[in-house]
């Protein structure tokens, strides 16, 4: 019986720097999420990354998620989610239209009910502008 919790954030930071994903869908800032009562593992991570603004030319970036906090049985963990690529001749991206399903990653990360987990996002490669990262954690028993 799964349960889903979602966080987002605008990644204004530089490359190789983690930032908290602590924004709710309605734009409010939330505390670290609390593992729901009765759930003992994260079974899937659903994610989407888009560029919230002009895409910088000739960049590639891979996006990572860090899970941290007392809610994790085995301590902090880092996961690879997805990437973006922008290659263009000229001074700006002339054409990029895309619609794509969110990525689903199957995992088996043990967690402690009623304890907190902080989500953080980072990217490696070249600064792509302002990526917007959305993550849903699927908790299961």
């Amino acid at each position: 019986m799964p349960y889903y919790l979602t966080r987002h954030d605008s990644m204004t930071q530089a490359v190789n720097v983690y930032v908290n994903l602590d924004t709710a869908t309605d734009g409010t800032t939330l505390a670290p999420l609390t593992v729901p009562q009765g759930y003992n593992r994260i079974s899937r991570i659903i994610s989407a990354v888009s560029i919230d603004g002009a895409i910088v030319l000739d960049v590639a970036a891979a996006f990572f998620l860090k899970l941290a906090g007392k809610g994790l049985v085995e301590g902090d963990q880092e996961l690879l989610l997805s990437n973006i690529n922008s290659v263009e001749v000229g001074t700006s991206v002339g054409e990029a239209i895309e619609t794509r399903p969110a990525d689903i990653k199957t995992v088996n990360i043990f967690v402690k009910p009623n304890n907190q987990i902080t989500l953080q996002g980072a990217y490696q490669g070249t600064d792509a502008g302002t990526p917007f990262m959305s993550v849903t954690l699927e908790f299961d028993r």
Partner: protein
Amino acid sequence: MAVYHVRYDSMTQATAVFSPVETGIDSTTLGAVKVPSGITRISKITAIVGLDAQGAAPVVTGANFVVRLGGNALHEGEQEIVVYKTQYESGGGTVTDTDFWSNAPFELYTNIPVKAGNDIKISAAYVGTDPGTPEISVELELS
């Protein structure tokens, strides 16, 4: 045994605002999905997002889309799931060529317990930049 219910809607709202997804394929407003007798769970969620009226949509936008399931049918209460993303860029300020593409939907096999005879309210929001009027379609597989 599975039964399927579909809703869609135009997302005319601003970013970070949920709006009901409650329109039937015949364009009537159907509202929530009523869980049929004998059904105990949502077994799959399917969703797709399209950029409607693209030529008129704002360029240089990116948005991630979230479906919220609510209503008194959900044992564990309201839940939100990231389902889709869109990107819409043009350096010239307008899209200057013609594009066609077709995507597979987002499909999530799941096991969300529900109460027969009660309602599942579907709503959706996007975060990021306003991409104009995206169209979202959601299918629930109930078992």
